[in-house]
């Protein structure tokens, strides 16, 4: 298995702000590698460094066998980059956008059509429409087609699913999985924890530091405590009540419920008493399996 990206000790500062600190990871040929973390965590900065748009202040980075400082010209021919704001020309039609990127990267649409057919067929009926008039999901598909048109061995997608509806999001991940059969390595970032499970391996990133790199399943399994799910009509008051309980380690809101861990992995009647005195009724309690987000929060606390 050869490594497509090898990064060690990458650091980047903007003025006094430390955007990235000691980032090290490897990406293996053909995998879908995800960077998961909240906004402002350094994902975009890291992707720009990998895409040769920024230089790291420290550390070593080798992408597709080229050094990021000296080999950027070769590298630029071999990566497909899709920035966070879909970089499309709003005043050009779907077709014109695609043709433009094809010529700029020295290819034609027909040459690599087979590669993008799956994705582009969704928007082909609108090929005469201006890109600015497309919906978020369609823009995303067009931007992906444009990034893929020269058949790059490495695809870098910066938050491709942000601002896109849920149906388009899951369609999009389906497309990425299909791309693997063309032997394209995909680097993708997202703030949505639930999307981590769709990656082969993920890196959790927070405040410019990598918390963990592993298969998503292993990251979930890294969560060792028993996890309980509490539900009541007033989630916020429920959470405050849980935090009053002396045995509680963590209590985080999670969707319509609160995820809680306890010392000794269990709770006793005094918790119920707290609920009663706070006037919280009909509390539903069940044990649940930890997700990526639970592990992420746990790692953040550590």
């Amino acid at each position: 298995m050869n490594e497509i990206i090898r990064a060690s000790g990458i650091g980047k500062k903007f003025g006094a702000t430390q955007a990235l600190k000691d980032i090290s990871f490897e990406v293996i040929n053909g995998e879908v590698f995800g960077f998961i973390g909240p906004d402002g965590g350094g994902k975009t900065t890291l992707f720009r460094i990998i895409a040769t748009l920024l230089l790291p202040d420290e550390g070593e980075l080798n992408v597709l066998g080229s050094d990021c400082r000296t080999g950027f010209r070769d590298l630029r021919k071999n990566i497909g980059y899709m920035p966070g704001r879909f970089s499309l020309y709003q005043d050009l039609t779907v077709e014109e956008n695609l043709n433009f990127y094809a010529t700029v990267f020295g290819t034609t649409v027909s040459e690599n059509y087979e590669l993008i057919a799956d994705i582009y067929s969704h928007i082909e009926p609108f090929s005469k429409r201006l890109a600015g008039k497309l919906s978020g999901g369609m823009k995303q598909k067009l931007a992906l087609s444009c990034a893929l048109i020269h058949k790059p061995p490495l695809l870098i997608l910066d938050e491709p699913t942000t601002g896109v509806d849920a149906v388009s999001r899951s369609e999009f991940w389906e497309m990425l999985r299909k791309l693997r059969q063309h032997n394209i390595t995909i680097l993708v970032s997202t703030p949505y924890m639930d999307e981590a499970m769709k990656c082969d391996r993920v890196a959790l990133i927070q405040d410019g530091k990598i918390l963990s790199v592993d298969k998503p399943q292993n990251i979930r399994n890294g969560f060792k405590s028993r996890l309980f799910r509490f539900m009541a009509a007033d989630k916020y008051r429920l959470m405050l009540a849980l935090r009053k309980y002396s045995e509680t380690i963590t209590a985080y809101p999670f969707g319509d419920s609160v995820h809680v861990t306890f010392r000794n992995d269990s709770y006793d009647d005094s918790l119920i008493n707290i609920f009663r005195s706070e006037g919280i009724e009909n509390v539903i309690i069940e044990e649940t399996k930890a997700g990526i987000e639970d592990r992420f929060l746990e790692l953040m606390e550590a």
Partner: protein
Amino acid sequence: MNRFLGFVRKEFLHIFRDYRTLIILFGLPAAQIMLFGYVVSTDIKNAGVAFLDLSKDEITVKISDKICSSGFFKRTGDLIDYNDIDRVMKMGNTKAVIVFENDFGRNLMSEGKAEISIIADGSEPNTATLVTNYLTAIITDFNREFSGSSASLSLSVQSEVRMFYNPGLKGHYMFVPGVITLIMILICALMTSVTITREKEFGTMEVLMVSPLKPVQIILGKVMPYFFLSFIDVIIILLLSWLVFDLPVKGSLVLLLSESMLYIMMSLSLGILISTVSGTMQQAIFISLVGMMLPTVLLSGFIFPIENMPVAYRWISSVLPPGYFLVILKNIMIKGTGFFYVWKETLILVLFTVAFIGLSVRNFKIRLQ
């Protein structure tokens, strides 16, 4: 090469798809020519003058007839005494009153010297200046005719250089070169800087940078369509001024067009330079308009003569390229001089171009930030 052509094609698509760009490109030059030609006219035509003739002799009648038959002035009244001056001025039709002194004709014949006062309506300073200039010109002319017959009028006459080349004192002899100078700066500097910063703002520059396109290809691709369209603009302006205002190009047309190309190149490289120092379209527009348009209008000699400016302003205007182009244009179009008379200005424009390109290349980043 294919890459580059694809890029140029895309730029043309941007331009032709945006009606605002098209209006600025083709509507604006035409509108400015018409505007300066008809509305902001610096010519006078049938301006009202009244006469206070205290002498009423053969010579004063001759002079007043000459004034009224010039086509520039029409007689709005004959006054009886000085008190009438204020009254007719207030009515507004009269821009100036011409006063002949007592015994004007006799004084002229016997002492060789007689006095005319021109009292102009100073509430409109520009018109007043024009009217007095025109009037003194007519009187000087009379003076010349009259001096053949022994006597001479002693009048304080201010002659203006431009009359020499512009005998009809036609304003558009002045403004056509000015409009070309202005429009080229506007289109080239403003539009190229905006189109480059637009790519930065929409995030498309990120992908262009990551693409195999070289920076020089991106810049040339951006600039080529505007070079081409600006050149068409120069031709449109020249055609319009020829067809509508009968303004001929006295000098060599080839020289004029080559100098225009040089000026377009200079403006384009300035536009690129502006785009390398501004991150947003707003910044680019601000720098182009406030930094280039206003000084071009005010300090290049287009409206206000550079010679009359305070020293500090003259220094500023000497580092503004448009002024040099204006001199070149006026020389070729109006005076009809050849390259020999404008080589200095041409050289200065070349130096500006080289400097702007050099600075742009130094400033252009192959990475973000």
